[in-house]
């Protein structure tokens, strides 16, 4: 019992279905932006409102959407995109970078993202990835 509220967030009352539809909308928005080669825009959409309270499969789906944006970008787009993000979004981005690094695919570009975010935020974003209860 204690574990459910333990996550430290007020239950938002959003069901998994709500989350799933959000993720699908996000996916569509991201694909549109990617077709227009607007990486910074695609990233903004992808990083909005991470589904912290959702079930594991929804989180995995969202992670796939975000990591897709990260891995399809080119090295030269990375710094420009990172420069435009807010501090909160940078933290969320770092969490997704680590999530993407778990699989071992496309590590080249993900490590470039890691380096770029680290250059901007320092150890703070890494510490927050490790310590925050809200995990992506």
């Amino acid at each position, binding site marked *: 019992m204690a574990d459910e509220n333990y996550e430290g967030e007020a239950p938002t009352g959003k069901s998994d279905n709500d989350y799933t539809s959000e993720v699908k909308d996000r996916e569509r928005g991201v694909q549109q932006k990617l077709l227009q080669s607007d990486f910074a825009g695609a990233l903004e959409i992808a990083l909005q409102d991470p589904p912290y309270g959702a079930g594991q499969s929804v989180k995995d789906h969202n992670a796939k959407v975000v990591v897709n944006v990260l891995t399809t970008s080119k090295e030269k787009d990375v710094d420009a995109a990172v420069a435009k993000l807010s501090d909160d979004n940078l933290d969320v981005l770092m969490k997704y970078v680590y999530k993407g*690094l778990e699989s*071992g*695919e496309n590590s080249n570009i993900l*490590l470039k993202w*890691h380096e770029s975010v680290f250059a901007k935020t320092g150890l703070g974003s*890494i510490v927050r*990835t*490790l310590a925050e209860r809200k*995990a992506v």
Partner: protein
Amino acid sequence: GRITGSETFAIHFSSFPSIHSIMATTLRPYLNAVRQSVTAALCLQNFASQIVERHNKPEVEAKTSKELLLNPVVISRTPKERVLLEGSVNSLRISIKVKQINDIEEILSKRFMRFMAQRAENFVILRRKPVSGYDISFLITNFHTETMFKHKLVDFIIQFMEDVDKEISEIALAVNARARVTAQEFLKQFV
């Protein structure tokens, strides 16, 4: 003139980047990411056990309470080469899966890692048994960070990762060279 058969072979082969140069492009960023993550996770402080009085256990091993543990993080270079970082309030466990590209390197790395793990006492920060799914594990506690420099510990881990990769490649090459020489000598008697 016309390109002969052996020349096409040479051209074909030289146009592929070697597997090691493909790997080399991600080594530095990989080690940097590991270095930064370890530095971030190495914030340890003394924390006595909340369950048993007068006991002081590395919480990442005991896993007694959720609030004392950090989110585990995996940094992979390839699906077969990665580092797992499990942190907690007073201890950090670093598990490394060493790069092994063929059977020889697998055997070598297993032996090498076992050799070191058996001498874990002298190594201080080494764990006797690797975490399942990995080749070797380190356990660093607050007591270690109190007596040793944190940045030196991190330097050591990174240097270790580099050196192990190099050593194993070297030994694999030496094994292959010796095998070739032995086979040549042996087969001479049949010529």
